[in-house]
């Protein structure tokens, strides 16, 4: 069955006709052309298709679009402002925490959710939180460093210091 869906995507209100069977992933990619949202496994096991729904990371491949009505969805396209990179994106670039880059948007959004929940996680907490995001280039050491660098950026921002040059 086809029905109208309205939701906020990256701060914009979107109204579109969707089928009951459409997933959030399909709506974001095929309808809204948000190419950062990618399918990796189709069963919610790899984290590649992670987006934020009301600030929480979700697997968009598993979520029916109709379940997202009225919610706020954020993709990587929505986290940089005025063409400026988000500080987590900067941390991923500075720490070279990307290789093929396919999993990167999912990781960046998971890290964003983590640091909003807990701005100063321990390494064990970071590992636990990110264990649902898979990277087959296996740049995990770099990704952990990027998270620490992002934590550092938050810390220096709250204390008014300039972020340390990496």
């Amino acid at each position, binding site marked *: 069955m086809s029905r109208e869906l309205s939701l906020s995507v990256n701060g914009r209100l979107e109204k579109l006709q969707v089928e009951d069977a459409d997933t959030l992933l399909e709506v974001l990619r095929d309808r809204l052309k948000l190419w950062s*949202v990618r399918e990796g496994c189709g069963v919610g096991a790899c984290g590649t298709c992670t987006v934020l729904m009301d600030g929480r990371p979700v697997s968009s491949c598993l979520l029916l679009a109709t379940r997202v009505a009225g919610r706020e969805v954020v993709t990587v396209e929505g986290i940089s402002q005025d063409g400026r990179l988000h500080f987590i*994106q900067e941390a*991923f670039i500075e720490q070279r925490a990307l*290789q093929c880059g*396919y999993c990167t948007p999912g990781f960046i959004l998971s890290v964003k959710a983590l640091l909003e929940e807990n701005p100063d996680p321990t390494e064990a907490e970071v590992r636990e939180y990110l264990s649902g995001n898979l990277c087959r280039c296996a740049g995990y050491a770099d990704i952990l460093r990027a998270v620490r660098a992002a934590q550092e950026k938050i810390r220096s921002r709250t204390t008014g210091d300039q972020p340390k040059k990496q």
Partner: protein
Amino acid sequence: MSDYAVVGHSVYRKDAVQKATGQVLHVGNIEMPGMLHVAVLRSPYPHARIAGIDKARAQALAGVAAVLTGADVAAMPGVDPCFGPAFRDQPILAIDRVLHIGDPVVAVAALDRRLAEDALQLVDIDYEPLPPILDVLEAVKPEAPVLHPKLRPAGTFADLAHVRAGQSSNVCYHFKLRKGDVEKAFAEADRVFEDTFRSPPAQHVPMEPHVTLAYLDENQRINVWSATQTPSYVRTELSAIFGLPMSRIRVRVPYLGGGYGAKLYAKLEPLVTALALVTRRPVRYALTREEEFVTITKHGVVAKLKTAVKDGTITGRKCEVYWDTGAYAEIGPRIVHKSGYTSAGPYRMPNVWIDGYCVYTNKPPAGAFRGFGVPQVIWAYDSQMDIIARALGADPVEFRLRHALDEGEEFATGTPVQAFGLKPSIKQAAEAIEWSKPRPAKRGTKARGKGIAAGVKAVLTPSISGAIVTLSADGSVNILSSTVEMGQGAETMMAQIVAEELGVAFEQVHIVQPDTDITPYDTITAGSRSTYHMGNAVRMAAAKIKTELFAIVASKLEVNPEDLVARGARIYVRGSPERGMRISEAFLAKFGSLGTTLTGEAICQTMAMPMDPETGQSEKCTEYWFPSATAVELEVDTETGQVSILKFFAVGDAGTAINPKHCEQQLLGSAITHLGLTLFEEMVFDEGRLLNGSLLDYQIASVKDMPEDFRSIVVEVPHESGPFGAKGVGETGALTVSAAIANAVEDATGARIRELPLTPEKILRHLSALKPPRPAGKR
């Protein structure tokens, strides 16, 4: 620190911002007006005859543009319905029979994917099941039914010229190496060690599954966008399949979401092209992860090693290695040949006998996987090195160093080794793990151990890389290369080399991505060959431009071109930077215009002496070697069998590191992948059916599996003909992981496991076998 301006520096990768913002181009992002989507009906039987296919109802469904069967493909005029890099044994769609569960049988192209899947429900196929062959050792028995009675060599690759037509068994390729008299060595030995090592089929799991888009352009030329590591090969293959001149086929490759060998040779391209030809519309096919699992796998291998030892020294080794290549040979024969010849290891032994068998079974096809078969043979020989050393009471590190080949000594193939940083790799691994320090005593249920393994891979030879470099008058550069960027940093490597050669800024160099209309032939983006081959090609192409620039400047300034250097976008007299010109001034001086370009083209072609088909001997079997070592310290919980890796060092010889950070990433990334393959990854089959064919059931390493202390050590033994001394390092970290971990498990617990993966269950089983039996009646 490097003497160079750009080479040897860890510059940031060219594609970092696009990747961090998710805006990098993948095939899945490319859409065309009227584009159709594909779904494929696959065989539910491991082996069956197709008695009939009824597709009428599917064809009648609104929105369905085509329903294609193998018979339809075979009936297309001028089309060869079978393909493959070694043998043309794989039909685009099954013809008359299916050979594995997941074999593609019927393809539908429709307005959207869901519609295409609905249409598949309306196809009726009548199968007559046949007995399947599911075990590689069963398949080689004389009484086993022959799966491919007629074999046609593909004739595409020079290094596969030796594969033969005709077939009387399931062994599609038999590699032989004979050196010395191995039976005499056994007869004279003090001790003979016989072990069988098994490694299971596994998955590459690129996060981006295979995806291909094909359409006919306004000139009715075939245009393909594909996530492939082999654009040049795909063009050649499509030309052969569809009987068209290569100039009528264009293959383009944007960024890949990982490859690891899965995306080599032709995969979806023949089918998607056939559908585009039939429908005359753009067609895109993206595999689901479940389809990915039955499309290409890592070879499961059974390796039987028999080793003679006299006076504490290895005198001979016989290797019988069975490679399960599945239903289609894929690149199996090249793996059995190119990796098979290293099966006895990089160790000194006068007598060697190797039989490598590439064997058909009714399982999904196996192909290249990061390491190209070498991890499977190192798993065997460097596990056995430890077994032997321990049995002799020798120190495993010292035992390896005593047998490791020195520079210039002959490998088992008779080829003298060069730029062979094996011993330094072993020594650095041992030093890093503090090998000689005593192990801490067992605490509670936690037993601590250390392990080391070493090995080498030889680069695919012969092979070819062509490149074109254009320098614009403003000093900016374009590189035209068919090397695929799949995460390894190839674009950055090429830009660094060309920036260094021409003395321009790294940022001024742009890479034109693979496009067979524009970028020259390249054999393959794989096998740790691009830095050497494409690196040399782009450097030579840039050097030609530099020669032209120097001639211009020399004549203008009346100096000797040999006294000139290129640096900082200027050409000047060495030692006198004021005596020179900017690149733009040189262009103006020559052409009187700033719109012109200088172009250089070069080909790097490596050559090998063909191996003797009976003895495997060759004066030169490879262009270069890449030695690898892994050192681990781990803890085994003897109650649960759980392994925790405490320290991990991945050691690899990179020649010269063009980008040290990227070398580290290659070493560590391939190491973690193989850590997962060692401890838990395995495709589990039951009667030919894959039981764990999704990422819910098939687990790969996550960030939680990364050892706390996890480091790489880049050994630099420059190769005299590598670009700035560089070799490849993309697989090195993968090679020695499994044996190192198994060796450490034995060091910790005494349990020797000869079958991967090293699951807790398996470890416990071995541990309980070690325990003395409890007296009856006591608990």
